[in-house]
């Protein structure tokens, strides 16, 4: 009987360990719910838009030089 009790106890503790392992995975929901993630998005969108405009301006300058030839 005692053996069975210990066995069940160990078995149960195993399941709790398992539950902890596969339980809730911490995600950054707070960051999004507070709205601050939009600041990050705005920043990288501005950076990428700037880089794209820079590429477009290079494209235009090249076109001018190509026409001169």
């Amino acid at each position, binding site marked *: 009987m005692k053996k069975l009790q210990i066995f069940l106890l160990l078995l149960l503790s195993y399941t709790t360990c398992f539950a902890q*392992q*596969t339980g*809730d*995975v*911490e*995600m*950054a929901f707070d960051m*999004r719910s507070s709205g601050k*993630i939009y600041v*990050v*998005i705005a920043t*990288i*969108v501005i950076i*990428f*838009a700037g880089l*794209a405009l820079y*590429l*477009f301006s*290079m*494209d235009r300058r*090249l*076109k001018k*030089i*190509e026409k001169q*030839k």
Partner: protein
Amino acid sequence: MKFIYQTWWKIAAVLLVLSTLVTGLLFDVPKLPILHESIRNLYFHVPMWIAMFTVFAISVFYSIRYLTTGKEEYDLIAVESANTGIFFFVLGLVTGMMWANYTWGAPWSNDPKQNSAAIAFLLYCAYLVLRNSIDEEQKRAKISAIYNIFAFPIMVVLIMVLPRLTDSLHPGSGGNPAFGKYDLDNGMKIAFYPAMLGWSFIALWIATLRYRIRLIEYKNNEIN
């Protein structure tokens, strides 16, 4: 070749990448241990490699065309595509090391994927060294075109095939599904596929700009 002077696909590429910057950070992702929110790196790290494959494939295509036609312009396209590919190679490797530092515990853990990517990088560095070591133009173009044709499949095998045959930390290796797990999540496709397409076209755009500059330089040298 008119395609490279057109603007519509450049705008499309920019819009695609801009859309993934928003969707990639906002949309739901699967909750996975260890990865947590860093799973969103998938939208930015993997497209670097896809962009690299795109421009390297274009480089090989024009290397073959150079060998069949002997047109000097095709050689210039091949070099500048390879140059752009190496740039995206470095971006992919650095972002991968950054990601690995927080998920695998170290930026470089001698993972098969990392090691073979490094070997493939040297393979393409050798391409540039080979080019710069030959003075005669036609000889240089011919030898480097042949080298490029051999380098490309070896690079693909090194990065895509060999790491999958052994155990690796990288997804897609040793019975570890690559995107199979994430593909079930349709939400991720919305950001992932446009990212691959968008970044590929951005790489192509940079390659065409470099080619056009190179062409002007080449023509200037011809007159003198």
